[in-house]
C-alpha cells in the first residue's frame, strides 16, 4: 500500500537548509526548468528501490537553489521505471543517468547517450545491483565488455588509449585521446573502474555506523564525506551537535583542505618538471599529516567525524598546536609561492594551459575549486554556512582565467585562507561536550548532508530503515560534475600537458565511481 506522497516541499531537519518534495513526472520536469531558469544547479541524481514498502522506485534529484538544497523524489513504477531526462537542462545529469540505469535499471526518457557507465560487464545487462531482488553474492562470470568510444576520423588522426592503469601512483581510469601530431582533438573519458558498490553496501550498516563507509568513498576527502554523512544522519535522527564538535569538524575540514592543497601544489610543480616543488610541498604536507595524526589519532582524520559530534576531543594543548603549525606552514608556503611566481619555466607551462572559460564552466555545471578558478563564485561555506563558518567570514577565492595558472592561484589563496581559518577556529573554539548520544532512527526518516570539501561539494542522503539500519543511502562526489570539463580543458592542448591539466583539477575516481 503506497503511503500518501505530499508534493509540498517539506523542510528537512538539521544543519543543511534543505527541502524534500515528492513529485510526479510533470512536476519533476517543471522543477528542473524552474531551477534552471533561476540559475540553479543540479547537485546530484540517484535512485532507490522502494520495495517492499511500495511497488515503485524513487528517482531523486538534488538542486542547489538560492534558498539551499531542494531534493525532489519522483516515484516511478517498478515494472517500467522511466523518468524524464534532465541532461538537456543540466549537462552533469548525463553520466549520472547512465550510472542510475546501470545500478537500478531506470531509464531517462529522451537521453541521448545510452551507453553503460559503471557497468563494464562485471554484472549482466538486465541485472541491477540496487534492486531488492539482486543477489550481491551470486557468482558471476564478469566478462568485461568492449566500450563504443566515439571515433574521430580524418587525415592524420590517430588514437592514444591510456589506462585504466596509468603511469604513476594514480587511481585507474581510461582516457582515449584522438590527436593530430601532438595536438589533442578530442578526449573521451571512461571511468567506473573503481566502482565498489558503495550505495548497495550502505544497506549493510546502521545509520550510526555508516560514517565509516562514507569516509572511504574518496580517501582524500574523508572529513568532507564523514561530515556530510553526519549531517544527513543527524537530520534523520533529529539530534543537535554540541558547538565544540562543530568547531572541531571545521578545524578538520580546513586541515584536510590544507593537506590536499599542499600535496597538489607540489605535484603540479613536479608535473611541470620542477622537482623542488614536490620535495618542499611534500615535506610540508608530511608535517601537517603528522600533526593531524597526533591530534586526531589518524593522519587523514578518518573516522574522526561521527554522527552526533566528533570521535574525540583532542584537548586545548593539541588544538593550540595546530595554530602554531599553521604559522610555520604559511611562512614556508609564501616563500614557495614567490619561487613559483618568479619561475618563468613554470609559469610558461601553467599560463593558458587547460583553459575552461567561465561561460563553459557555468553551462556545464562545474563546481568547487575548479569552478572558482573559472569565475564561478560558489562556496557552501559562504553561501550556506553551517556553524562555525558563519562566524568566520570565509573569503571566496575566485579567479576568472580558468587555466592551470588560475587553478594554482586559487589553490595558494585557499591554502592561505584555510591557514587563517585554522587560527581563527583555534581562537574561537568553544568549550564543552563533543558528542551526544544517538536515538534509534525512525524508519522512513530522510536526511541530507552537503559540505564544501577541498575539491567541491559532497552530498550524502540517507533514509533510515527498521532497527536503526540504513534502508538506502547515496554519496555524491563533486568529481561527477567536473570530470566532463577535463574533456573540454584538454582540447587544442598538447598531449604532454594532459598530466598537468589533470592534476590541476585532481578529481576523484573512487568518489565518482561509487
Amino acid at each position, binding site marked *: 500500500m503506497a503511503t500518501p506522497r505530499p508534493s509540498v516541499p517539506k523542510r528537512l531537519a538539521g544543519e543543511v537548509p534543505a527541502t524534500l518534495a515528492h513529485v510526479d513526472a510533470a512536476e519533476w520536469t517543471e522543477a528542473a526548468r524552474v531551477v534552471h531558469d533561476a540559475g540553479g544547479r543540479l547537485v546530484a541524481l540517484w535512485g532507490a528501490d522502494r520495495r517492499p514498502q511500495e511497488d515503485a522506485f524513487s528517482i531523486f534529484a538534488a538542486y542547489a537553489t538560492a534558498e539551499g538544497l531542494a531534493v525532489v523524489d519522483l516515484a516511478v513504477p517498478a515494472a517500467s521505471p522511466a523518468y524524464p531526462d534532465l541532461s538537456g537542462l543540466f549537462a552533469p545529469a548525463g553520466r549520472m543517468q547512465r550510472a542510475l540505469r546501470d545500478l537500478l535499471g531506470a531509464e531517462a526518457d529522451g537521453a541521448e547517450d545510452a551507453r553503460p557507465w559503471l557497468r563494464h560487464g562485471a554484472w549482466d545487462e538486465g541485472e541491477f545491483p540496487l534492486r531488492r531482488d539482486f543477489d550481491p553474492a551470486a557468482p558471476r562470470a564478469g566478462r568485461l565488455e568492449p566500450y563504443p568510444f566515439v571515433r574521430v576520423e580524418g587525415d592524420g588522426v590517430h588514437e592514444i588509449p591510456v589506462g585504466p*592503469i596509468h603511469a604513476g*601512483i594514480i*587511481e585507474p581510469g581510461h582516457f582515449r585521446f584522438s590527436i593530430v601530431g601532438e595536438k589533442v582533438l578530442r578526449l573521451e573519458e571512461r571511468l567506473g573502474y573503481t566502482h565498489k558498490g558503495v550505495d548497495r553496501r550502505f544497506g549493510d550498516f546502521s545509520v550510526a555506523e555508516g560514517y565509516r563507509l562514507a569516509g572511504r568513498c574518496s*580517501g582524500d576527502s574523508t572529513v568532507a564525506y564523514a561530515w556530510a554523512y553526519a549531517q544527513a544522519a543527524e537530520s534523520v535522527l533529529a539530534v543537535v551537535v554540541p558547538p565544540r564538535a562543530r568547531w572541531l569538524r571545521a578545524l578538520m575540514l580546513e586541515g584536510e583542505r590544507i593537506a590536499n592543497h599542499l*600535496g597538489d601544489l607540489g605535484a603540479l610543480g613536479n608535473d611541470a618538471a620542477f622537482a623542488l616543488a614536490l620535495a618542499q610541498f611534500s615535506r610540508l604536507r608530511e608535517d601537517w599529516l603528522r600533526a593531524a595524526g597526533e591530534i586526531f589519532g589518524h593522519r587523514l582524520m578518518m573516522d574522526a567525524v561521527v554522527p552526533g559530534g566528533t570521535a574525540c576531543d583532542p584537548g586545548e594543548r593539541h588544538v593550540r598546536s595546530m595554530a602554531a603549525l599553521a604559522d610555520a606552514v604559511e611562512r614556508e608556503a609564501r616563500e614557495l609561492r614567490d619561487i613559483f611566481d618568479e619561475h618563468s619555466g613554470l609559469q610558461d607551462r601553467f599560463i593558458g594551459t587547460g583553459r575552461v572559460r567561465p561561460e563553459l564552466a557555468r553551462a556545464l555545471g562545474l563546481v568547487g575549486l575548479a569552478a572558482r578558478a573559472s569565475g564561478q563564485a560558489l562556496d557552501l561555506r559562504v553561501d550556506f554556512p553551517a556553524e562555525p563558518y558563519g562566524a568566520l567570514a570565509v573569503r571566496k577565492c575566485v579567479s576568472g582565467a580558468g587555466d592551470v595558472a588560475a587553478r594554482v592561484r586559487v589553490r595558494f589563496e585557499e591554502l592561505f585562507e584555510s591557514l587563517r581559518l585554522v587560527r581563527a577556529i583555534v581562537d574561537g573554539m568553544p568549550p564543552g561536550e563533543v558528542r551526544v548520544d544517538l536515538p534509534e532512527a525512525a524508519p522512513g526518516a530522510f536526511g541530507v548532508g552537503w559540505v564544501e570539501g577541498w575539491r567541491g561539494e559532497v552530498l550524502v542522503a540517507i533514509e533510515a530503515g527498521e532497527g536503526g539500519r540504513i534502508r538506502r543511502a547515496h554519496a555524491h562526489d563533486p568529481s561527477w560534475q567536473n570530470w566532463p570539463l577535463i574533456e573540454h580543458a584538454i582540447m587544442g592542448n598538447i598531449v604532454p600537458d594532459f598530466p598537468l591539466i589533470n592534476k590541476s583539477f585532481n578529481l576523484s575516481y573512487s568518489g565518482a565511481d561509487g
Partner: protein
Amino acid sequence: MIPIMLKILRTGIVTEPAPPPREEWRTRAAGIQDEVLALLGRALVIREVDAGSCNGCELEIHAVNNPYYNLEGLGIRFAASPRHADMLLVTGPVTRNMEQALRIAYEAMPEPRLVVAVGDCGRDGGIFGEGYATCGGVAKVLPVDVSIPGCPPPPLAILEGILAAVAARGDP
C-alpha cells in the same frame, strides 16, 4: 635562482633512518626464497596498481617518496611499466572492473615477482568486503607475499612491508 638555492640550503636533509622490515606481515614465508632476494639485492623497482582503493592508500604511498622517508635513497623506486618491475604494490579490494587489468599487469612482470597488498582493503576487501563489485582482497586474484594492514597504513608501515618482502639476510 638564489631563492631556490637558499630554500634548498635552509631545508637541509630531513630524511629519517629506515625502519626494520616487519617479518610478521609476510603471508608467504616460503614464497620469498633467498635466491630471489639475492637476485633482487637492495635495488627494487615497484609498479603500483590501484585496484579500486579509495585513494587513501595512494596518498600514503606518495608519502613514502617524500624527503622524510626517501624511499629512493634505499634503492627502491617506482616504475611506470610492470615490465620493469620486481614488485607489484596493490591497493584496494580489487574491484571486478579492475580485476582483469590487475592480472594483465602481473602477467607483464618478469620473474621473479613479488606482490605486496597494501591496506585493509588489499588484505581482505576491508570495509567494502566481497560483493558484486569487489573481489574481497588482492589474494583472491594474485599470490600475495606480504600484506600490510591499516586504513590506510601510514608511510612507515608501507616501508616496513616493502622491506619485509625484500629483506636480504643479515642486511640492516
